[in-house]
């Protein structure tokens, strides 16, 4: 009796693993199909532009405001610690490096996942639930090319721009608190920052991170929406899954990318 119980439990674990791998395979096939059939999204570019509007422009407020506040908090906290060691001039370096390398791409990626990713999933899922996607197929319009691909490319274009804005606003916020409020020397703030931040190793790698996060988040969002069970419950579950999965994906990818980019020993 105990043995059968254990076996059933093991089987449940096994089936979960198998279905997860199956889903990953399906999602990869979906991504390949999506990229191959994105001719329409690029030829009729206004479709993609409309999605840049929904994913990017409408996320501007949250990105700008949170970037500003994250930078301001970094300025305050960084100053508290640095002034103990008498090196409060290094505040600019601390704020800029932590924003450009890590916080900019990661926090804007998390915000993007919850602001734009969830909306993309809900929209596509609802289109599926109300059989709009099937109606398109009836009219010989490929829903992946017409609906999914523009959302994918729109999200991918928006993400690096949002991350860049986030970092820039954060550094401005750090400048406001550090220089204007606390009174760190402005010259030292900027010049030490410029001496320490490298365009290639820091800024370009940050942009690469944000592009990778953009691909991951929009891929997960469009896939979850397309794969959602066509019910109210299914769509809501898919939306939740998008936020959870893409947040975890961002953090895991961030670790991998950081390990690849910033731990090259002398290669920096």
């Amino acid at each position, binding site marked *: 009796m105990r043995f059968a119980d254990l076996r059933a439990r093991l089987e449940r674990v096994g089936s979960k693993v198998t279905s997860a791998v199956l889903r990953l395979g399906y999602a990869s096939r979906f991504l390949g199909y999506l990229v191959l059939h994105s001719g329409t999204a690029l030829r009729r570019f*206004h479709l993609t*532009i409309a999605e840049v509007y929904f994913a990017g422009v409408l996320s501007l407020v949250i990105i700008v405001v949170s970037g500003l506040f994250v930078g301001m908090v970094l300025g305050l906290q960084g100053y508290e610690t640095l002034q103990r060691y008498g090196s409060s001039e290094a505040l600019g370096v601390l704020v800029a490096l932590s924003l450009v390398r890590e916080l900019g791409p990661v926090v804007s990626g998390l915000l993007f996942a919850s602001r734009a990713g969830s909306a993309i999933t809900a929209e596509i899922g609802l289109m599926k639930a109300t059989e709009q996607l099937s109606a398109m197929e009836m009219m010989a319009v490929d829903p992946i090319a017409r609906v999914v691909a523009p959302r994918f490319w729109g999200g991918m274009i928006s993400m690096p*721009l*949002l991350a*860049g804005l986030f970092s820039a606003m954060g550094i401005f916020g750090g400048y406001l608190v550090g220089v204007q409020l606390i009174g760190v020397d402005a010259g030292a703030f900027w010049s030490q*920052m410029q001496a320490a*931040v490298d365009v290639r190793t820091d800024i370009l790698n940050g942009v690469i991170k944000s592009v990778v996060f953009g691909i991951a988040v929009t891929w997960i969002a469009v896939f979850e929406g397309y794969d959602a069970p066509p019910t109210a419950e299914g769509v809501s579950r898919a939306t939740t899954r998008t936020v959870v999965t893409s947040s975890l994906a961002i953090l895991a990818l961030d670790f991998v990318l950081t390990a690849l980019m910033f731990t090259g020993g002398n290669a920096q």
Partner: protein
Amino acid sequence: MNRSAIDLWVGIFVVAGMAGLLFLALKVGNLTSFSTAQTYQVNAKFANIGGLKVRAPVKSAGVVVGRVAEIRFDTESYEAIVSMNIDSAYPFPRDTTAKILTSGILGEQYIGLEAGGDGVMLKNGDRLRLTQSAVVLENLISQFLFNKAAEGKGDKEAPK
């Protein structure tokens, strides 16, 4: 919302994003300084470079005149070869001394150049003959202890 309004907003968004990235590249990074300036490369051999890193500043009289371009290890003399790019605006005489110095007590290490009196200036690919290695704390301490021990011995032997 009609298409032209969307286009306008997306245009503003893209311009703002690009401006943010440009701000990062120009104001936060140092794209404008040095990478566009003309440089010439000189090499120097050091017995020990300590914690010197690629892209560390090369200073003369405290002014940054260049950056370390490459650090190699010479298997024939078992010494470190440091290549540095120096701004062409600053010519140095051929008998310039290169020292590895530390800014502050715990600061980063950099190369300090002290100009000599030779009339011939350094050219691209030249080698600096006079170098002084980095100060390694362990060596300093062991030297100090050694000297102390030697002194102690001397004191003991003296009364005999």
